[in-house]
């Protein structure tokens, strides 16, 4: 094939892909997952996490992100995978979650490692199929096919929801008061 034609094609594809089709991929165990890039705020290495009592198992605690305290969720735990020791590659992805009640907040998600930002055009995303009972369907945005493998694209708003909606609402109310007060 004509090299320049190939280049043109590639550029054309890149140009056609918008931000809502870019995903940050990471690994949990043997599978690869992805978050839409638009919800990712930053990626940091693991830092001190202060545990908080009475929280569900997968909420590891809170951490200090440049002066703000945000909760930290361990995704392996949330997806009921066995836990592992943190390694040098373990990262915390800070994502922005939208609360159904209208609030927006940030949480940190602990993952085994972070891979890359890739483009997955819409036509390559399949609706979620039941992947056994491991991961609830409402966590999954879709299954992306890229370079011959499958990336499980996650819906951060479901994954990041810590607790049931009623609690969320109460939490939002209290937070507003504290925010106004502090």
């Amino acid at each position, binding site marked *: 094939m004509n090299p320049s034609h190939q280049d043109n094609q590639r550029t054309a594809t890149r140009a056609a892909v918008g931000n809502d089709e870019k995903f940050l991929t990471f690994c949990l165990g043997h599978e690869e997952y992805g978050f839409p890039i638009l919800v990712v705020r930053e990626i940091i290495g693991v830092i*001190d996490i*202060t545990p908080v009592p009475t*929280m569900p198992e997968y909420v590891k605690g809170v951490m200090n992100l440049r002066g703000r305290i945000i909760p930290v969720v361990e995704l392996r735990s949330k997806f009921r995978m066995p836990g592992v020791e943190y390694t040098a590659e373990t990262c915390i992805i800070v994502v922005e979650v939208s609360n159904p009640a209208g609030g927006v907040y940030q949480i940190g998600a602990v993952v085994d490692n972070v891979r890359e930002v890739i483009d997955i055009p819409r036509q390559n995303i399949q609706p979620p199929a039941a992947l056994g009972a491991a991961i609830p369907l409402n966590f999954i945005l879709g299954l992306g096919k890229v370079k011959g493998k499958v990336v499980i694209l996650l819906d951060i708003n479901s994954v990041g929801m810590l607790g049931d909606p009623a609690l969320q609402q109460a939490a939002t109310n209290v937070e507003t008061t504290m925010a106004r007060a502090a």
Partner: protein
Amino acid sequence: MALRDQIEDLCKAAVLVDADDLPGLAAVHERLQSVESGFADARYASIQECLAKATRLVEQIVLAEASDPQQSLELVKKAVEFVANSFEAEARGLPLPAPESATATGEVAATSAPGAGGETPDGPVTFPGGGEVENVAEILAESREHIQLAENALLELEKSPTDKELINTVFRSFHTIKSVAGLGNLTPMVSLAHSAEYLLDAARSNKVQISSDNLGVILRSCDQMTQMMRAVEGTGPAPLKSQLAALIGELERATTGEAAPAQVAARTVQQPAPRPAPIPDTPPNAMNAAAELNVTPEAPAPATEVEEGLPSDARVTQRPSAQEPVPAQAEATVTGGTAKRAEQTVKVSTTRMDSLVDLVGELVIAQQMVVQDPVVKGIREPRLNRSLTMVGKIIRDLQEVSMSLRMVPVKATFQKMARLVRDTAAKCGKQIELVTEGDDVELDRNVVEAIADPLVHMIRNACDHGIEMPEVRTASGKSKTGMISLRAFHSGGSILIQISDDGKGLDRNRILGKAIERNIFTLDRPANEVPDHEVYNLIFLPGFSTAEAVTDLSGRGVGMDVVRRNIEALRGKVEIDSTPGQGTTFTMRLPLTLAIIDGMVVRVGQQRYVIPTLSIERSFQPGETEIHTVAGGGGMASVRGGLLPIVRLEQVLQNATRRDERDALLIVVESQEARACFAVDEIIGQQQVVIKSLGRCIQSVRGVSGGAILGDGRVALILDVAGILAQAEAGTSSMNTQKECQTA
């Protein structure tokens, strides 16, 4: 400026202006008035009259009251032309053009009838065109400030009805409201402000005496104004048109009904420039302009009087329809006044201020992290260390200043209470006086906002239930007027706000009775052994109320428990003390600021926690003899002769750690209800920490009220003593049940 030049200016302005060119119309207005004052001689009566009417017409156009603005504007232009011609004629020694003047004035007169329109059915007041003006929020904010100023002055006026300065304050407030509301096209507000302003003007020139009736009417004007403001911003219903008209009518009757005959009182207010005869207002719907515009020859003010102030004759006899023209100079004085104030304060958006304060908070933390870094600590460079110390000092100062940005004096809130007491007392038929102390004490503005409701509640209670009726008071040898004192002062790192009344005090037996009746309290010992303190605190329980009837003031039983909860949400406390027959005192203890608390950093296992110093009584290392284990595992410690339960924080906080009982340090803590000892491994130190919310989803953790970022950047949970104690109790009982089940 010579009269000729002034007239030229006027002509230019009039030619260029359009019916919807507000600034242009304002310019014309100004010039009309300065020219009018130039024609001071009695010869120019008709010219003055003509100018006055033209001025009125312009006002109508501006206030959107003219039925046909274009035509009115045409008339104004004609009038200007006529005036200019007259002046020229005069200058050249020609006779004044009389017939045209009559026509001009006649026409002007005819159209001066305010286009109040036909009969509109009654309904809520509307603000066509208003509310969409861009700076409506600012207009309302400023108006609110002035309403508050006016109210305070009015309340003072009740005590000293002849104080001119106070009357002026109220006058200026309404005047300013009229101006800013006009800018926002909020016509009904302008009308109300104008009528009130006019009454106050009469008062300050001694034509009207300040009576309690008058004060009542003006206070009600404040209320209706506030109501209208709420309607504009959509937070409340507007008053009905009939209500507004009725109020305006009352204001006018107060003004003219008591108008003293024509003595010109020399103005005590600095109104340097000459003012043309202001035209009194009349209700928008009473109109017969032509007849009423017949101006008597004496009406135009002789020069000297104009310089001094308002000729009263002119004011009383003229009854045309326009608004009171306010001379440019007077407006300048008013704005001059505001300009002076503006030099001392600056308006800053609160979001900006909050980000500034947040950033300074982060700076403090970041600096701590640098200074406490082991590498930095090990540096032995004196110069570097000096620089670091300096940086630290500057940052501390910066923090103090930024914290003070959010502090406001409680004065404004206290002053609102004065009005509340007056109104409540009137409603109850009692005589009550409010005395305040410590108005200058400053609190975080969020705290001030949050205590307003609890204060209202407690003061209402004091008025309703505390202070007795005048007859009862005299019968028991007290003065007829009850006194409520509202004090704010510093004490031990917190702010105390006390509300005391010299009323009848709390009735212990009645409270106990009601509490038992409503099943919110059970007697576990003889009634008279329950200490006073405990009995009084019963009124804070939900569902409690001793009022026989639910008045609209209080008595619905929702009051005091909400009050206490609100205060505790601010990390404050509220206490009651009372002496039967003599009075009751509520004391609110509040932190200086919500963002920072003084806390004790402790270590339990691997984690550090912060316990608010306010809740700590003392700490000690218990000796062997002071610890007692009770069957089942719960430990007790003897503290000053009493036994207190030991709370193992690691259990409540699910912090797995093993420790030998005897090595623990005990911290005696207290909450509103109980005292206990927390067992910790180490006390690290006392420090001020910035409270950070734990993030939305983790709010509802009992026993934890927030997070603090310590010097090494790690997060420490701030403990809520009451929550921990409750959690511990729940835990113990469930543990006991478990044990029972296991052994069974």
